[in-house]
């Protein structure tokens, strides 16, 4: 298992290490981080170029890895660093290692790409704007890239947790970049704390996995995923410590615990509240961390150990329900937001809900697909928003904009491409992936799965409608109509370093959907579903020992008796037809609200139309009072309890300690009074003492 799998048919770029040297993607940013930390203020552009170079190298290595895997190289699974070597036969061993398979290679590429583009974009967004403390910014970005890449290539759950947390730290540092203002400082705290709450469950999960299986490896026959599967398949859970529970029940518990981490990081209900606040950070950071990569970590984590989740129908149902509900719930809030980045933030939450929905609905492929496309178009939207904000002199309220499409041509086009993708309009990337999510959920619901899946599917459909609406509302308010302010009349020009990433991502938003046009699977040749082939491991060479990581295998487990027991049903339409029908329905559901938005906000000087919503508007503007209840939990419950504990501690516990001193002193005063100074008293007490002794011992000694 361990050891470098020979690159049998590997393709290689000159001077660029691929799968065999994939550590470079991790180590380069780490070194960059240290360099910027130490010498940042002496580096050209305060470390920006260094960051670009290291992420660029990382991206190239990732691409090389993908190419090698695509051309028949075997996957790589190797332990690199032993954190804690357990003594033989006692205690688990904790290691760091790499696991490069199609999933991680894909994610690595996405992270590398977005990270590179964000670095480039930052040249214009940060350097050109004369921000101070730039070395800190670039150091944190590098640290983030390092952590995220390491998270992606993790070969075990503990290592995942380690870098999951580090990613959270970077998020904290970058949200709080402008720490002098109270807003960012507070938002950073909130982001870390809320995700920490999720990570608490995740960590229990990690510990439980280690306690149950003695290993946290993702891949190989000795991995916990395989051990769990074997245990359920053979019905023999010996060798696994299930702490007195039935094996499947216990696996469900573990799965749900780990899910806690994903819910926190991927901003799922009810731990989603940190993400909108996180928009206090610099916009490129929002693009990189709070849209495209870190937030994806939760979904990626579930996908990474999907073989384990596929064993538990309960866990999957919970995931689907959480995902579907979040998709719907966040979308409703996005409807009424006035700041550009807030709309995008809620849209992000909503989109990750889709991915969760897909995972819970049995659509592993769909989830990864949507993860990919979403990373691209959401990064694009955020970077576009960044460009707009710069040109609007840091104005974020959409009602202060309008009519920007003529002045900011490139930005407009790119932003539009992203918006179409987000709204799921054919043939942009989002259409394909979102549709596949809904399709997968639907067929498993129809296949006799849990009724929860129907509910989740319905919520997902409703979210489609709202997504299209708020997306177009955003585009129209920003770019169309007449300029509503002086700033909008005369926007700042967008620099080249900002335009290039927009263009690259814009193009990708159009074409990324072609990776897996499953809607058309009845028409297309089977080989056209590139992503499916990729995730099925069809391009990967070498021994199939690690085959448990393929989408095919997951599907097998998902549909097996011992696993989740999902079956696909097509409502009597047949597979291809249903896909097509679903696609059309989704498209229609997206187009109609888009037209409604056009109707409402397409004019030169649109009305807010918000009053029509009545009291619902207040509810939505206040985000269903989610923040309020969480603040209440912290301030209204936890803090008083802590204060009470403190009172108890100072009053009672410490009071007893101090009180025993006081009582002693008081007793001392009493005892002291015996010493009256008068000899007669002394003599009397002396005689009394003698008499008492005499009496006591006369009685006990039997002298009388």
């Amino acid at each position: 298992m361990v050891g470098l799998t020979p690159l049998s048919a590997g393709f290689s770029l000159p001077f660029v290490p691929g799968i065999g040297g994939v550590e470079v993607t991790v180590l380069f940013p780490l070194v960059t981080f240290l360099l910027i930390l130490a010498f940042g203020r002496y580096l050209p552009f305060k470390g920006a170029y260094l960051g670009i170079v290291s992420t660029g190298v990382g991206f190239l290595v990732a691409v090389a890895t993908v190419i090698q895997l695509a051309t028949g190289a075997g996957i790589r699974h190797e332990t690199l660093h032993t954190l804690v070597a357990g003594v033989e036969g006692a205690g688990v061993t904790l290691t760091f290692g790499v696991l490069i398979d199609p999933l991680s290679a894909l994610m690595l590429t996405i992270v590398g790409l977005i990270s590179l583009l964000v670095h480039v974009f930052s040249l214009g967004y940060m350097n050109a704007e004369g921000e101070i403390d730039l070395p800190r910014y670039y150091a944190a970005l590098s640290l983030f890239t390092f952590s995220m890449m390491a998270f992606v290539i993790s070969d075990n759950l503990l290592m995942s947790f380690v870098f999951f947390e580090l990613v959270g730290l970077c998020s904290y540092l970058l949200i709080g970049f402008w720490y002098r203002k109270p807003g960012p400082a507070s938002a950073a705290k909130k982001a870390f704390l809320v995700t920490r709450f999720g990570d608490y469950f995740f960590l229990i999960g990690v510990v439980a996995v280690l306690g149950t299986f003695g290993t946290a490896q993702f891949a190989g026959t000795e991995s916990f995923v395989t051990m769990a599967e074997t245990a359920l398949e053979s019905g023999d859970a010996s060798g696994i410590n299930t702490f007195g529970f039935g094996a499947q029940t216990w696996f469900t518990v573990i799965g749900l615990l780990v899910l806690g981490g994903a819910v926190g990081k991927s901003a799922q209900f009810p731990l989603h509240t940190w993400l909108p606040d996180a928009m206090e950070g610099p916009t490129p950071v929002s693009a990189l961390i709070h849209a495209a990569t870190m937030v994806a970590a939760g979904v990626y984590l579930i996908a990474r150990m999907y073989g384990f989740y596929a064993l538990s129908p309960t866990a999957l149902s919970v995931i689907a329900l959480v995902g579907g509900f979040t998709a719907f719930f966040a979308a409703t809030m996005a409807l009424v937001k006035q700041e550009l980045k807030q709309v995008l933030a809620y849209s992000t939450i909503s989109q990750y809900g889709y991915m969760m929905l897909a995972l819970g609905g049995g659509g592993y492929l769909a989830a990864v697909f949507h993860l990919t496309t979403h990373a691209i178009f959401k990064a694009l939207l955020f970077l576009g928003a960044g460009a707009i904000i710069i040109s609007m002199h840091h104005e974020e309220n959409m009602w202060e904009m309008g009519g920007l499409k003529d002045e900011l041509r490139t930005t407009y086009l790119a932003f539009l491409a992203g918006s179409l993708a987000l709204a799921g309009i054919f043939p942009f990337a989002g259409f394909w992936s979102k549709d596949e999510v809904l399709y997968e959920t639907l067929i498993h619901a129809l296949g006799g799965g849990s009724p929860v899946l129907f509910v989740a599917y319905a919520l997902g459909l409703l979210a489609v409608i709202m997504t299209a609406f708020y997306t177009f509302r955003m585009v129209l308010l920003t770019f169309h109509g007449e300029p509503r302010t002086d700033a909008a009349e005369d926007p700042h020009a967008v620099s080249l370093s900002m335009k290039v990433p927009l263009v690259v991502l814009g193009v990708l938003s159009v074409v990324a959907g072609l990776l897996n046009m499953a809607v058309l699977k009845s028409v297309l040749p089977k080989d056209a579903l590139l992503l499916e082939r990729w995730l099925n491991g069809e391009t990967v060479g070498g021994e199939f020992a690690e085959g448990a990581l393929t989408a095919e295998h997951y599907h097998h487990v998902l549909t097996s008796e011992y696993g989740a027991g999902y079956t696909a049903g097509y409502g009597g339409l047949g597979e291809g037809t249903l896909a097509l029908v679903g696609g059309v329905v989704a498209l229609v559901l997206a187009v109609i609200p888009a037209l409604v938005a056009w109707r409402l906000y397409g004019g030169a000087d649109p009305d807010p139309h918000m009053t029509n919503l009545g009291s619902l508007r207040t509810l939505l503007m206040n985000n269903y009072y989610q923040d309020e209840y969480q603040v209440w939990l912290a301030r209204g419950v936890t803090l008083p309890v802590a204060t009470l504990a403190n009172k108890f501690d100072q009053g009672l516990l410490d009071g007893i300690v101090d009180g025993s001193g006081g009582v002693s002193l008081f007793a001392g005063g009493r005892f002291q009074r015996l010493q009256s100074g008068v000899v007669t008293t002394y003599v009397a007490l002396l005689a009394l003492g003698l008499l008492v002794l005499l009496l006591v011992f006369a009685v006990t000694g039997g002298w009388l």
Partner: protein
Amino acid sequence: MLIELLLAATFLSALWVFVASDETAPKLAAWLSLVPLGLSLYMWTQFDAAGNGLLAGSEIAFETQIDWFQFGQYTLQYHVGVDGVSFPLVVLVTVLTTLAIISSWTPIDERQSQFYGLMLLIEMALLGVFTSLDFFLWFIFWEAVLIPMYFLIAVWGGPRRKYAGAKFLLYTNLGSLVMFVGLFMLVLGLGDSLTQLSLPAIAQGLQAGELSRPVFGLAGADLRAVAFLLLFLGFAVKVPVVPFHTWLPDAHVQAPSPVSVILAGVLLKMGTYALLRFNFTMLADVATSSPAAEIIAAVGVVSVIYGAMLALAQRDLKRIVAYSSISSMGYVIVGLVAFTPHGMSGATFQMVSHGLISGLLFMSVGVLYNATHTRMVGDMGGLADKMPLTAWIFVAGSFAYMGLPLMSGFVAEVLIFIGAFDSTVVAGAPVFTAIAMFGIVIVAGYLLWAMQRAIFGPFELETDYDIEPAPVHDVAPLAVLLGLIILLGIQPDLVYEAIQDAIGPVLELNSVFGGELR
């Protein structure tokens, strides 16, 4: 001979510093403290212990055993040596003392020679505690720690220093006395078979057989149980375990920061170290019996959560760190009682790790205080602009305290959790563990809050002088500690291997007593 050299060098250094002038004492003490530091590092390269020093079949490193005097039937010995449990703590002592001495240069501005002399004296006593293998010798050092610490708090402390010093002295002394009675019940119970008071002899005697002689009318298992209770109570004060912790916040808040560093960094470890040595090694059978194990686990969990809740309610930065020490020590208890490889070893590792991390936090709070003359969280704010390096190291230290991965605190906590979760000794171990783990959320809560208020935000403090970045000699110790924390976070096996080696034989005791080892 190296341990003797270590102790003698430290003691003579202390004497030298005592007679030095106030002007020369700070630098002199720092230079002199490099001697034990260098020696301990040299010992690291020569370290060759195997097994647990208290149990049969072990090899103790740097052992010296000389008869001292006869005490009834018992031969008291000068018996020192280190194993994988004690040696990391020895190095921790030398490292922290040197750094604490350097960080005292700024805040200590009167009676320097006495201050630094006492610092070196306490170092000697602490080294003695962790190297002694004879009970009475160990107990001398154990008690000797109190005297310099009392003066350090009561002379150089804050406004309520006298109260805090007296409380510390009286409370911990009471604990020692109770513990002493507990141990001697065992010693007497062993009867004539025991002829020396060396810890290995007592430990092996206890494992070898029943307690043949009744003490206070107790014999056998009852005697073991009562002695266990007394020992536990005694050490619980030192650790401190809730509800015996109330001396700690007072002592910490009143002590000057470098002294808090020693107090939190090493003194608290004396308690857990002793718990490991006495309760969990000598009386492993009691510790692993039900319901003792569950009760101890519950006590540990309560310490974790309750300590963290108290920290949440504080407004004084030092008090926050003080209470979180209680919380962190709770993890050690939880780990120890688990009686699993990672539980016990992780707990020991946590002693080292928490020594470094709490040292770092107290030290950086001290540096901030030197500049601002306030420790109230609400009074600060925006210090990251005024003292960037110190502030960011404080942030890093806070994250280390929260158990951020790749720092030693994470490794320690995760090992404890893994070990505790798996415990076969504690019924319901997963539940205990899960509750204890909630501590990581609360600790994040109060430290993030404190950072937000004290480090970030706009600068608001009104002073009639300019707040300058701290001088190099204030920041350098912080940086060194941070480096060590990260080093141990990435490569814990540097010390963890030795710890595991020494813990292994202890775990086998469980099976000796009929338990099973996972």
